[in-house]
Each structure stands twice: as C-alpha cells, then as structure tokens.
C-alpha cells in the first residue's frame, strides 16, 4: 500500500511540473462542464422539469456525475493511456515488475485538470442541494457515492481497456463510449428507453451511484438502496474489472516496440 501511495505521489509531482498545462487543463475541464451546463440551460428554458424531475434535481445529477468523473481522473486516470503503453512497450516492462499491474497502470497518470471537473461538480451539487429539500445529514453520504461512482466508472474503462489489449492502436476512442455513458447519468433515467436504463443501472452501473442517491435526496427513493446499491455495484464492478484484466493479460501479445 505504501508503495502505491509513493507511486501515485511521484506521478502527481511529475504532472505538477507542467504548470501552464495544469492551468489550461483546469480551464478546459471547466469549459467542458459549462458546455454541458449550457445544454441544460437551453433544455430547462423550455421545460420546467425532465422525466418528472425538477431542474434542481437534474442539477444534482450533473454535480454528482462531474465529481465522479473528477475523482476518477484525479486518482485512477492511467487506463486512458493504456493503448500508448502497449505501443511503446511500457506495458511489457511493467508486467515483469513485482506489482499489481492494473493498480500500477491506474495510478501512473493522474490528471490535474480533474480539479476543474471536481470543483465544477461540487459547486453544481451545492447549488442543487440548496434547491432541494434534502436532509442535511445526508451530506455525509456524498463522499461514499462519489467514491463508489468513480470505482464503477474506472472499472468500466478497465474492461474496455482490456479489450484494447487485443486490438492495439494509437487510439482510445472505445473508452469515449464509456465516458459518454457516464455523461448520460446527467439526466434522469426516466428520460431514457428501457435498454439504456438496464445498461447504466445494471450492466455498467454508474446509475447505482448517481440515480439512486439523488432519487433518495429528492424523496422518492429509499435510504437503504441509496446506502447499499453504490458499494455493492462498486465492489462487483471492481471484481469484474480485475477478472477481465487478468484474463486479457493471459492472451496479451507484445507489439515488439
């Protein structure tokens, strides 16, 4: 554990060397959140609510989603670089280290622009909270939901990344599908068709850490589900991701770089 902490802090220090990159990255992440917020503004200027949810409640989904994204980017972002690790031959070297390869990959490349996403999410969630009649004590549950959401999101990225081990190329576009799926959690599940609900609530269960908690906060979901579903979904996703990763490594062929 101590080793992984040092690895992460070293990677973080390396990223912090590029101060202009950091500043531009934070601005960029914030502008992407603003772009999403602009669409929300357009939509809510025509309808008071969506799928039975008020604009404040939808805003809570926005905030929680952005915090989940920010935490994953800040702690476990290395998976996005997997295609390049394969092409450069860095993964070959890593596989002979006496470490857990997946944990090493995940911690190897934190993105400091995650701060922009996380802060934008926290501010949005705070504004949304003030618009809802949620119980104040429920605030202590927010970190649990965000951590669980980040684990589920990263696990989904790992599973897609494992597929990319078989089809290496200088691109990570399939991972963008997972990113877009997470962004789908910004709007109530009732807006989407049944197949998409099944996908984001049970198959790649981002919804478990986003929809269920906000449902509870708006008063139509149970506390038990808001408390139990996120950790269960996170644990199941993490186990599945480790299993798929190990399976993919068994058939891994180096690019010879």
């Amino acid at each position, binding site marked *: 554990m101590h080793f992984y902490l040092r690895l992460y802090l070293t990677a973080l220090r390396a990223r912090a060397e590029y101060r202009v990159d950091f500043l531009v990255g934070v601005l960029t992440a914030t502008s992407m959140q603003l772009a999403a917020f*602009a*669409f929300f503004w357009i939509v809510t200027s025509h309808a008071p609510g969506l799928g039975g949810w008020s604009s404040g409640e939808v805003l809570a989904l926005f905030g929680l989603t952005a915090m989940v994204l920010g935490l994953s980017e800040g702690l476990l972002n290395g998976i996005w670089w997997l295609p390049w690790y394969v092409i450069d031959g860095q993964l070959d070297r890593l596989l002979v280290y006496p470490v857990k390869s997946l944990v090493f990959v995940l911690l190897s490349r934190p993105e400091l622009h995650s701060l922009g996403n996380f802060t934008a999410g926290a501010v949005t969630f705070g504004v949304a909270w003030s618009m809802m009649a949620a119980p104040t004590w429920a605030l202590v549950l927010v970190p649990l939901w965000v951590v669980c959401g980040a684990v589920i999101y990263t696990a989904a990225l790992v599973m897609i990344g494992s597929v990319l081990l078989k089809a290496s190329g200088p691109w990570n576009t399939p991972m963008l599908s997972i990113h877009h799926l997470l962004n789908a959690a910004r709007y109530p599940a009732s807006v989407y068709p049944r197949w998409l609900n099944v996908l984001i609530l049970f198959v790649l269960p981002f919804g478990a850490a986003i929809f269920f908690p906000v449902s509870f906060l708006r008063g139509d979901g149970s506390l038990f589900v808001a408390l139990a579903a996120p950790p269960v979904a996170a644990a199941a996703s993490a186990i599945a991701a480790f299993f798929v990763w190990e399976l993919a490594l068994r058939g891994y062929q180096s690019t010879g770089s």
Partner: protein
Amino acid sequence: MSTALPVPSASQLLSGFGALAFRTAESKLTYRLATVLSLIASGFAYCVYLLVWLAVYRENPNPGPIGRGAMTAYLVVAFMVNAILTLSLEFRFIQRVRMGLVGIDLLRPLGFLPFQMAQGVGDALVNLVFVVPIFGVGLFFVGGSLMPPTAGAAVLGAVSLLLGFVVNFGVSYLIVQASFVLQSGYGVIFTRAALHQIFSGLAAPLVMFPDGLRAAATFLPFRHVVETPVRFWLGMAGPSEAPLLLAEQAAWAVSLLFLGELVFRSVMRRHQVQGG
C-alpha cells in the same frame, strides 16, 4: 553553392493539393476501425441530446417555434454535418510538433495553409464516406423529413456546407497557431470543442436558445459550421435569407483564414522546431 528551387506553377500546386488530400484520406482509412468507433461513440453521445429533447417535448408539446418532428430531423442532420466537418487537423499537428516533423511541413512548396487545408479536405472526404450509410439509417428511422424539401434547398445546403468547411478549417488553423506557441495544444483544442458544442447549434437550433446564449452565438463563427448548412438543407432558411447567411459565412471564412495567416507569420518569427 546553392540552387534555388523553381517556383511551382498553379497547376502543380493544384495537383499537389489534390494528391495530399487523397493521401490524407488513404492514411485515415488505414485506421478505419478507429474512425468507425469514434463515430459510434459520438453518435451515442448525440443520442443523449436527442432523448433529452424528446423528453422535453413530452413535458411541453410546444416548447418553441420548432415542432417535435422538425427538431428530430434537425438533430439528425446536425449530427451528420458535424461528423463530416470533424477534422483531425489539430491532433495531427500536435503530434508533428512534438516529433519535430513540423519543420518539414514548413518547407513544403505548397505553403503551410494549403498544406493544412488539403489534409482537412482528405479528412472531410473520408468522413463523408462513413456518414452516407448513417444517413440511410436516419432515413429509415426518421423518414423523408431528413431530405431537402426542394432542389434549391439541397443546392443551398451543399454550398453552405462547403463554406462551413472553410469556417471550421479557419478555426482549426487558429488552434494550430496556438499549438505552435504552447507546444501542447490539448487545452485550446478542448476549449474550442466546448465552444463548438455550445454555439454551433449542434445540440439545438439557435432559435431554441435562451436570449443571452443566442446573442453570444450570433457574434461567433461556430453556428455557421453546423446550424446554417442544416437550416438550408431542411428548408428552415429559405432563398430570401440565403444572400445574407451565405455572405456571413463567407465573411467569417475569409476573416478567419486572413487572421490565421497573420498569426502564422508572427509565430514564425519566434518559432523553434523541437528536435523530436
């Protein structure tokens, strides 16, 4: 002793431009799986816009001047226009800056701007090839409302799409200049993507925007990349609006290219090529 290279003739430049566009298309087709996956990913993201709008129409059947059917057609065609005009210029350029290959690009007899534009044409041609089947799928699900109502609308849509390409290229060319200065252009690329996402009319026609956002959009070039061609194609903008809209598009196209060249010359005075 040095020998001056002969200045290429106009026909040589034109054939060089065509050859570069063709080679860019060929190289992009090498990564066709990546292009298809990228289209699927952005198509999925776009489905969210569509589904959210359908929810808006369920909540409020008359949310503005555009009905549900027209909005669906608009969103589907906007996705396709955006897919055609998505250029890989900036990412390709950043890679070449980092590897020090941009030094070769600066020496090409074609000139830096035409060199970049030829690559943009290659990108757009490949995108067009992939978008045609998507249009067929769209026709199957949405029906004839995706087709232009008259031959004139089709012609205006096509002309506007060409001008939209130049406007989009002009913005990309400015981003390329920013990458010269910053060495890493990811920040400006994604900031531009955010602005494009908001103001191009990709998520909704400007007429559905709140007043403040619409006012901002009218002062920016992005709407002429997606919204203007789509409105012409679907007959939402008629021939009476055509002269003004096309003139605005052309003015943005020329201004952006001119500004890009000005910035390029100023950047070249201080640029140092990386050693790779």
